[in-house]
């Protein structure tokens, strides 16, 4: 059952990822990214990360991607056209990308030749209580710093998009 769920949602994630790279219209790309995030959320549930799965949908797919779609619609982004700069990038980039993938795959298979199977319920320490306890005791300083970072982001976004009332 966990294997079936993994296969289905991993396939959806990869197909949506490829669609993000291949399609030419920004709104289609945004929808593809939302599809990837939603299938990743299911994979997090399989890995026992319940809070992270819900937060993925809530924060990423429900807020960040809405912001993206908002900007795409505001700017009325059209289908992009190919330019001559892209041709050189594609020529050099595809072999290097395959090399990156190959190296990563090699490292993974060397490090985990016979790894355990991932089952639903194999890790029960990912509840909200556990994550909350870790955030507020062991990782309190990063938490506080992250909240200041978010404040800086808010101020920065307002300053950048502010229109002087004249």
């Amino acid at each position, binding site marked *: 059952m966990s294997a079936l769920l993994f296969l289905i949602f991993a396939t959806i994630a990869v197909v949506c990822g490829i669609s993000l790279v291949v399609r030419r219209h920004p*709104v289609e790309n945004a929808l593809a990214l939302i599809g990837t995030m939603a299938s990743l959320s299911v994979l997090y549930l399989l890995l026992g990360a319940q*809070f992270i799965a*819900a*937060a993925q949908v*809530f924060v990423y*797919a*429900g807020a960040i991607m*809405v912001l993206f*779609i908002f900007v795409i619609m505001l700017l009325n982004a059209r289908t992009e056209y190919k330019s001559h700069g892209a041709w050189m990038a594609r020529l050099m980039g595809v072999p290097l990308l395959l090399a990156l993938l190959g190296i990563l795959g090699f490292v993974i298979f060397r490090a985990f030749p016979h790894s355990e199977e991932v089952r639903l319920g194999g890790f029960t320490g990912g509840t*909200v209580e556990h994550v909350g306890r870790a955030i507020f005791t062991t990782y309190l300083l990063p938490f506080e710093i992250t909240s200041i970072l978010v404040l800086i982001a808010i101020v920065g976004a307002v300053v950048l998009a502010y229109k002087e009332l004249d």
Partner: protein
Amino acid sequence: MNFYLLSAIKAAVVVGVLMLTLLYLQWVERKVIARIQVRLGPNRVGPYGLLQPLADTLKLLLKEDLMPPGPNRFLYLLAPFLAITLSLISISVIPFGPAVNVIGVPTWMQLTDLNIGVVFILALSSLNVYGVVLAGWASNSKYPLLGGLRASAQMISYELPLGLAVAAPLLMSNTLSLREIVVSQSHYYGGFFPAWNVFRGPFPQVIGFLVFMIAAFAETNRVPFDLPEAETELVAGFHTEYSSMKFAGFFMAEYSNMITVCSMATVLFLGGWLPPFPGLDVVPVVGPLFWFLAKTGVLLFVFIWVRGTMPRLRYDQLMRFAWSFMFPVAMVNLMVTGLLVALVG
């Protein structure tokens, strides 16, 4: 009984009852608004107009199915489907009653109890924005696009007070699972006064309840926050270009969202299936269900009542209300609740 078979039966029952409720909620709304506006409402089709929803469904099914010109066919068809699917999924974690024994099968009156139930519903309600925004974009014309953009800005803005208002009773109930939240409200003060979250110490969540209800109005695009689908201002807002069953999809999604937020308010603030005085739910299955439906029904009536009574807020008034008033009030509510729970609880 097999877990899957039991879940399938429960799901079929819940979806069937929900569909029937959606149809007749529309009838109730038309009758109540008609009476508020000193007229009769539908009373031709069947006794008291009770067959009116069936007539409407038939009409919508048989209408011409238009498709506007433009490249976005997939998005155009996806948007109402997304809207109705997401609002139906949210019903699956709402508890309707305690553990019961139906025909010898012990089960909870709830489709599934996630231990992150509250975050699940908040996540799905934040995905509701997509149905509206994609409908506006895919219709490829001015008024739906404006309606869609305004709707998405409104829904995102009101998600913040909604989330903060939800967080305060979670501090008092100490759990995210909806069933456990109701169970934690099940004691009675002095043997007779219910310990629902609106009445419970250390901080009765009256402000939280009001903030939640107002934010719920905005999240479901109901009056006074229904500028995105305003019938007199933006033609029909984001669903202008939709006809027949696709329009029915948006319509059903709006009522289904209403039912979801009213059920959430009942579970979080009003004690779910618990009776107001102990011992009033002696009847095993029907008793708690009756109290749950009664409380949700009262909240739905408030939704309909407000629709018939209040004028619409202008867009900038709406946004200013969200950011300058609702968000600080919800924050202060959460902070005071947290302080009192830390000191007393």
